[in-house]
Structures are given as structure tokens and as C-alpha cells.
């Protein structure tokens, strides 16, 4: 899977401009991911590719359309040095895997990446590097294991917290 590299402070207006988000159609949202910032992205991204970014990825609006669009475009995970808080929760909630990885900037655009959600390992096959992502807090892992917040609340939810 290919790495699509982005910089710091990639905001939700860049990911999904507000003028394009008057919809809940997942397919359409997948088509508009980075539509103005990187117009070739949605056309060329392949199922399973990953986004690699710097600090504060997903800052700005609370719009869940942003992680929904990234997931619908076929992206299998986002690797970043840090994530903006609401984007982070939104991604966990909708089942888009995130890797918080301090060394994300060692990865270059176009590198071939393999990921293990279980171990949190990011393997840059182009460079022969294995990077380690920070594990999620236990509470959030439980939400991920249920497949997102909806399923978490449908099962035992907050009862056993």
C-alpha cells in the first residue's frame, strides 16, 4: 500500500471543504477528499493506501465528513505524529484506524507501507524501516475492538465502565 504524505496542521477544510459537505453520501464524500488541496488524491488513491502526516492532522471543524471521506476514498489508516482531538475521536468512532507515530516524517510520499493494527507496527518497505506507533489507551481500545462507538453503545456500553 502506498503512502500519501501530507504536512503539519492539515485541517478539515483542506480534507473536506465546507462547500462540498452538504451531503451524507459516503461515496460522494470519498470523491471529494482533498478535492482542492490535492485534486489527484481521490482519483489515484488505491484501496488500502495510507495517509502519512505531521502534527495536528485533522484540526479545525468537528465535521465527521473528514474521516468518513478519507475512509470512503479507500484509505486503510492514517499515520501522523499527532492528531487533532475531535478528528481522533471521530476516526475511532467510525472505525478508521489511526497510528500515532513520532517518526512519521521518516516516511516519504510514495513509499510502500505495511501496517499491523494489532502490534502498532508501521513497516516502511521502501526504506526497510519499522516504526512503532503509540498504543491507544485501554478505554479507547475497547471502542475500537467493538468496531466503533455505535457498536460499543449497542453492546455493554457504559454499563461496565
Amino acid at each position: 500500500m502506498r503512502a500519501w504524505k501530507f504536512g503539519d496542521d492539515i485541517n478539515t477544510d483542506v480534507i473536506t471543504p465546507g462547500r462540498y459537505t452538504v451531503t451524507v453520501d459516503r461515496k460522494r464524500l470519498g470523491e471529494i477528499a482533498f478535492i482542492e488541496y490535492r485534486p489527484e488524491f481521490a482519483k489515484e488513491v488505491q484501496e488500502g493506501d495510507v495517509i502519512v502526516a505531521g502534527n495536528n492532522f485533522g484540526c479545525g471543524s468537528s465535521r465527521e465528513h473528514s474521516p468518513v471521506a478519507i475512509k470512503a476514498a479507500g484509505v486503510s489508516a492514517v499515520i501522523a505524529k499527532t492528531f487533532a482531538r475531535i478528528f481522533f475521536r471521530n476516526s475511532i468512532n467510525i472505525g478508521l484506524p489511526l497510528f500515532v507515530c513520532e517518526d512519521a516524517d521518516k516516511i516519504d510520499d510514495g513509499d510502500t507501507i505495511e501496517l499491523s493494527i494489532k502490534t502498532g507496527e508501521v513497516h516502511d518497505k521502501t526504506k526497510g524501516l519499522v516504526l512503532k506507533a503509540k498504543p491507544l489507551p485501554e478505554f479507547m481500545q475497547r471502542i475500537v475492538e467493538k468496531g466503533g462507538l455505535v457498536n460499543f453503545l449497542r453492546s455493554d456500553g457504559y454499563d461496565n465502565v
Partner: protein
Amino acid sequence: MGSTITEKILANASHKKEVAPRDFVVADVSYAMAHDSTAPLAIESFYKITDKVFDKDRVIIVFDHFFPAPTVAGATLHQKSRKFVVDQKLSGFFTNGVCHQLLVEKYVSPGDVLVGADSHTCTEGALGAFTTGLGSTDIGGAMATGKCWFKVPESLKFNLTGSTKKGVYAKDVILSIVGDVGAAGALYKACEFTGDYVKNVSVSSRLTLCNMAIEMGGKNGIIEADQKTIEFLGRDGKIFRSDKDAVYENEYEIEVENVEPQVALPPVVDNVEPVSAVEGRTVDQAFLGTCTNGRLDDIEVAARIVKGKKIARNVRFIVSPASQDIYLAAFEKGYLQDLVKAGGTICNPSCGPCIGRHEGVLCEGETCISSQNRNFTGRMGHPKAEIILASPATVAASALAGKIVDPRDYV
């Protein structure tokens, strides 16, 4: 060891004696809000969890992001949200203002926990409440359960002392702070504003400060409630105060008399400079409004500046009061008349121009000076249009001059 206001409110809402930063808690929410842009996805998630809201008087829907609907797509989403309001018999459905302003006017009290599907839900923390923005699925979950999980944030203290010089406002103070701290400098943190400046300014100015906590990455903005808060709201609440020995991850000392009129230059909010850096730059649009600066005192400042004068021919001056109550008050005071006579265009209360949905979209190559909180690429229209953030005074003075000017020459 003492606790901060944020820690005390989260402890209270999660039925614990005390909580510490990094604890995970499940808190009762006082209110769960979504607006026309985020409600449709929240409603989808909600119905996957349950078919009845936890409390029909505590789930709030506001149409402000594209109201009245400018497109068929917008009208279709409105229809979906309206059906939810009717089916769930919600008492709180509004189309008469920007959500955060309405939540201040009608709902939030000191000590409350408010979750809103809008990132600027940090605004209402200025009332001494824990208020934070979340995405649609989180809000759908809160609408279903009346609860929400949180990681208790570390707190940052911003101690603001002194008073601003004439022509310098809370917007300039918070822009200056965002410039210093950076767009990710308060990531996941509670931003607590305190000091004699905060005590002395209006509740409206306090709301402006907390509104932009998210622009530093903050989880919430918060200000201790006082008698001024209670009188402003006309309702009681539970006042929490930070202990003297509360622990802050970092403390910032800011003497506000040193703050000059500020601007945030595109394409990010922490690209802050004194207004002198761009003085003389031509503007095509000036926008006064939003949850940051669309309140009565903001409109008053602008009206005083333009009264009896004419805005420059090359500028569209758009004014959108943050709520219909503010609209009426500004009309009764004569501010709207002053703005219209000067050549301004008054729009209905909404977020429209700030997010490029309608009522003031920019084309390629245009520059807008705005009292809003974000200047991201493409936010107000074309990706090659530029947004410069400033105080209402700088916006109004620049509308008169047709170019960016120092407002101190106009107030």
C-alpha cells in the same frame, strides 16, 4: 492537591469525588447539540443505537450553517433533521441564530456539561461550564444515552492582566495568544482564562476568548463564573472555582496593555501579526458576525465607526448578527440603521459566509477581512481567495477605507 474548574465539573458530572488529568470518565451531559451540517450524520448514528432520545428537552438542534437553505441538497438535509425533531418531540429546535449564541442565551449555566457537534462548542465555557466540540457519532451517542466519555484534560492557565488600550479588543488578545501558543500548542488541553482583565471584561468578550481555544487545539475554554455571569444569564448555576493549589501543565502571563490590534493571515490561524504588517492591503469583502464576534457590543463598535460615513466602493460589507435577539437589539439601538446607511448588507443570523456556504462567498483572488475564527484555505469560497482575521473594529474601519487599516485611527 487541588483541582481545576474543568476537573471539578467533570468529577461532579461523573459522580466522582475527584478526577485527575488522563483519567477516563463517563459524564452525564446537560445538553447535546447538533446543527444542520452535523445533525444528519448524528441522527444516523443515533438510530443505530436506540429510537428515543435520553431527554427531549436536553437534545438541541439548530439550523445555522446553511439557513435558509441555499441549495436543494441543503433543504434535503434540513428535511431529514426536521423529521428527527418532530419524531423525537424535541423542545429545542431553533433557526434564529448561531448555535453557540443560542446556547448561551437559552441553555448553558455554570457547572453544566455541554457537548456539541461543532468544534466551537468551546465558546460556552466562558460561562463556567465544561463545553466541548465532538463529531456527529459522539453526539448521536450522547443523544441516545445522556452520557459521554472523556479523557480528563491537563489544564493550561492564561493569566490576563491589565486593560487593553483604546481600539484593542478581546479578539486581538486571543489572536495574540493563538499566535504565541500555536495551532497545536494546547492540543487536548483545557484552556482556563483568568486574571483581572478577564474579570473586568464583558461576558461577550469572555465568549470571544473561549471561542478560539480550539484554534490552539484546546479541548475546552473555561472561565470561572461570577456575579457578572449570573446577571448576564438571568439564571443560576453551580459555580466551580479552581483551587489555589490546582495543577496546571503550563501557565502563561499576558499583560494585555501590550497587545496591539492583531490580524491572522492565511492560511492558518496561528499566523498572527500586528495589523501594521498588512496595513494598506486592499480588501474586497469585510464580514462582521459569527460565534466569535457577532454580539451586540461587536455590532456597536462597528456601527460607531461607520456612522455617518460611507464604506469604500470596492468593498462588500456584510453583517450577520449572531442571533435574532441581537439583531432586534441592534435595530432598537439604531446600529443596524447606521450600518445600512453606510452601505452595509445585513444578513440573517447564520454561519453562512464563515464557511463559504452562502451570503458572501469569495471568488479567486479576493481578500476578505473577517471577525470570524478561521482563515483556512478555501473556507469562504475559492481556494485562491484569502481570509484575514481581525477584531470587529478592524473589520469596520477597513470596510470604510477599502483597505486594511489600524482601527485606533477610527475609534
